[in-house]
Each structure stands twice: as structure tokens, then as C-alpha cells.
């Protein structure tokens, strides 16, 4: 695998909240005390268990603590390592798992303020996604409004598996706020664990959980299209993060087939789902579920019928490749340049702004 060209835009890296204590200064007085009094533990999710190989590449893993929690190492390993111009921080902390929407809102605000002080203010190459509480879309919209004034926030972050499929109108206040602020919705692998991670029930092994993520992305894309999110919010872009991308054409062929026969159910779906995806959906490249032969990857990507959908991501510090070879073999130089520069700049217009 080749390494990305100099000055690429890395659309998915993961600074880690070291522990709940680190967020306490960013909670307001009420919640800081409640967290202590109520004995709230770490909001770690089982999405990335500490010892799972994917959670941290061995050479990026610290002896103590979590991979991605140390600014110096992230600067050296992710930013200098890949020679990126910008990297978008997607903080995976268990805000979405909480059952109390008020506490989730408090933690979302804390994570975002922590992101500003501990990361964005310390390296001008960093950008970030706004963590929101999907438990309460009105709170989420308010948090988008609050944080969007800081132009270093370039996206809104959600998890692919929430209470219900993300196209449902319940979530629309989030999309309305994001569209109004010119922010794409980043949908990351992971679950709020309201339901089994596969549609046929709980799996036994971690590999099953990982493989099932792409099913969740397929269903989520279907939901966004059929529920009419892109008809209601024509300027909205959605970015799938850690979704894989090889599944996209065949899934949309299948959806398109059913849509042709059942168009009357969803008359707002006014063109083939692949055409809608080309306009509204972007996908990051790591982890790549690429076929073994590089020439087959090129053929597969040709089925997208678009060179604008893929975005470069290192997915630091998750383990999918060695060294800085984050570009899968079989992607042409022209497409590599598109996904490292042009496509991210188009997807995240705020990256084009000078931030003072």
C-alpha cells in the first residue's frame, strides 16, 4: 500500500479521552458533582475493547492509557507521520450510550469543550467533529449551533447504530441544524447498544461485531434515502467513517431494484439510490475491505460511477495497515489525489477557510 501524498487531508483520526477525570473540568458544577456522587464510571464502549488488535496499532499503543490520548504522540505519529495538512478528530467516547439525555447533553458539551482546549488550540492542523447527544435531537441541534461558531469544527458526529434507523424524522432536527451551519453529518462505526449489533441477534465473537458494522451502514444509508433525508435537506452531505466501501455498489443495486417496484411508497425518492448517494454520500477509505488483487479494486471503484465519493483517512490509531501505507493498492494516482485533497475540501468547505 502506498502512503498518502504530502499535505493530504486526513478525514478520520481518534484522539482519546484518557478517562472521565479528564472531562470533569469541562462539566458544569451540577454535572461534575452528580458524576462523582452517582458513581458514574468511564463511558467506554465495547466497540473498541482495549485488547482488540484493531483498537490500537502496536507501535501506536502506549504502555499505559489509551492509544490516541497523548497530543505529542498524535502529532508525531499521525500528523507528522502522514504529513497531513489537516486531520479531523472524531472523538469516540460513550456519550451516545447514556440513557439519560440530560447527562448525555452535559457530556457532549464537555467533550466538545475538551476538544477545543486540549487539541484544537494546541495544533493548527487539527479540526474536529461536534459530538452530539442523539438521545435528544433538540439538544443535539442546540449543541451544533453552539459549537459551529468555532470554524474548526467541520462536521457533526453520530454513531451508525442508535435507537432507530438514522433516517427517521426523529433525527431531523440534527440534520436541519447541520445543513444550516454547512456541516456534514459524519456517521461512525459503533453502537449505542440499544439493539444487537447484527440484525439476526447478538454475535459471539468480536470479528462478527466488526464485520457487522458494514451491514449497519447499509441499513443506515437505505434509511437516509428512503425516509427522504436528502429530499428534505438537499444541501446535506453524509460521511461514513470506518464503514468500508466495497459493499456500496452492490447494496445500491439491490436497493434500486426494490425502489423501482415500490416507488409509490417513497415518491420523494426521485432518482436511483446510487444517483442520490453520488450527490450526498462520502466514505472514508480505512479500513478498506478491498479485494486481494489491486486491479479488482479499481474495477470495483468504477462501479461507484464517481471519483468524488472517497475520502482519505488514516484512522489513527486503529490498526489496519503498517507504516504510513494507508492508501490501498489499486487506487490510481489521480483518484488518490482526489481523495486526499479535492474531495475533502469539497465535503468540508470550512477547511478552505483560514482560521485565525
Amino acid at each position, binding site marked *: 500500500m502506498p502512503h498518502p501524498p504530502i499535505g493530504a487531508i486526513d478525514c478520520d483520526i481518534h484522539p482519546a479521552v484518557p478517562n472521565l477525570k479528564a472531562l470533569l473540568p469541562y462539566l458544569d458544577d451540577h454535572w461534575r458533582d452528580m458524576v462523582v456522587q452517582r458513581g458514574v464510571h468511564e463511558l467506554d464502549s465495547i466497540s473498541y475493547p482495549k485488547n482488540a488488535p484493531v483498537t490500537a496499532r502496536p507501535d501506536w499503543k502506549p504502555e499505559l492509557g489509551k492509544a490516541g490520548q497523548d497530543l505529542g504522540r498524535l502529532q508525531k505519529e499521525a500528523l507528522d507521520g502522514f504529513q497531513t495538512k489537516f486531520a479531523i478528530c472524531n472523538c469516540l467516547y460513550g456519550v451516545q450510550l447514556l440513557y439519560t439525555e440530560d447527562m448525555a447533553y452535559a457530556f457532549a458539551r464537555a467533550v466538545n469543550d475538551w476538544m477545543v482546549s486540549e487539541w484544537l488550540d494546541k495544533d493548527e492542523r487539527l479540526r474536529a467533529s461536534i459530538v452530539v447527544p442523539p438521545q435528544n435531537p433538540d439538544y443535539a441541534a442546540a449543541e451544533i449551533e453552539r459549537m459551529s461558531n468555532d470554524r474548526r469544527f467541520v462536521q457533526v458526529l453520530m454513531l451508525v447504530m442508535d435507537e432507530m434507523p438514522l433516517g427517521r424524522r426523529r433525527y431531523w432536527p440534527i440534520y436541519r441544524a447541520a445543513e444550516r451551519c454547512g456541516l456534514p453529518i459524519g456517521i461512525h462505526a459503533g453502537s449505542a447498544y440499544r439493539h444487537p449489533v447484527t440484525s439476526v441477534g447478538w454475535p459471539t465473537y468480536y470479528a462478527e461485531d466488526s464485520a457487522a458494522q458494514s451491514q449497519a451502514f447499509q441499513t443506515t444509508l437505505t434509511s437516509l434515502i428512503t425516509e427522504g433525508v436528502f*429530499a428534505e435537506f438537499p444541501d446535506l452531505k453524509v460521511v461514513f467513517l470506518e464503514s468500508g466501501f466495497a459493499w456500496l455498489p452492490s447494496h445500491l443495486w439491490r436497493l434500486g431494484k426494490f425502489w423501482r*417496484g*415500490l*416507488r409509490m411508497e*417513497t*415518491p*420523494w425518492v426521485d432518482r*436511483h439510490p446510487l444517483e442520490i448517494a453520488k450527490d450526498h454520500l462520502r466514505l472514508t477509505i480505512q479500513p478498506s475491505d478491498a479485494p486481494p488483487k489491486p486491479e479488482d479494486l479499481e474495477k470495483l471503484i468504477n462501479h461507484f460511477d464517481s471519483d468524488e465519493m472517497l475520502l482519505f483517512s488514516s484512522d489513527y490509531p486503529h490498526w489496519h495497515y503498517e507504516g504510513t501505507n494507508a492508501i490501498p493498492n489499486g487506487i490510481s494516482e489521480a483518484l488518490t489525489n482526489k481523495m486526499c485533497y479535492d474531495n475533502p475540501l469539497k465535503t468540508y468547505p470550512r477547511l478552505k477557510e483560514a482560521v485565525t
Partner: protein
Amino acid sequence: MAKHIAAKVMDIPPGERLSVEVQGRKIVIFNVAGEYFGLRDACPHMGGLLSEGVVIGLVEADRPGCYSYSRGGEIVRCPWHGWEFDLRTGKSRFDPNRWKTHSYDIEVGDVQQLEVETVDVTTEGEFVIVNL
């Protein structure tokens, strides 16, 4: 475009359809409240007989959830895979310019108005006439 007698009016009451063969072509004629529409009786997808499809109205939406329903009985759905075709144009709803079935002009007239060679002419009543 020659005119051909296809059927008797009484054979296709309002809301009904009739499959006929004219010059070796299978054509389905629909009567929608007294208006007649003719389509090639084969879905362009895989050849399902449109004469066996259900007719519905046109379902549209300006926005998700804001349905409008009009033109009752003017859309036929192929019995095989549910593709919708507009009886007035033969065009599919999902991709009107690419997917369509041939549509024929249908007229109702007396046989005396025909200037075509006809055989088996019945001079009683009114006839349904197809332009090919």
C-alpha cells in the same frame, strides 16, 4: 399511421382493460372514465403483461410525508415487479425517459369514419379503433 378496429366499446367498460392483438401486436386498451389509452401489452423490463397489472393513481410528494394523490386509475403497475407506467404516455414513473412501453393513440368512432381496409366489419354500434 393506419387505423385498425380493435374492439367494441361495450367490451371495455370504464375502469376495465382489454388485451387485443392488432396486426400481430399485443396491445392493452384501458378505459379510464371514458378515456381510452393503449399500451404495448408487455413491460419493457421482462415482458410482464400490463393487461394483468393493477391500476392506481399517481402518488407524488413535494416533501417526505407530504403525499399528493391524483389521476386515479391512470397508472398501471406491472404484475411481475411492480414497475409503474403512465397510461397516457407509456413512460415509467421511476425513469420516464429511459424506460417506457410503446403507447398507441386510441380513438372511438363509427366504422363509417374509417378510411382503411377492414374485414369483418360490424356495422352495429360503436367501435374502438387503434392507430398504428
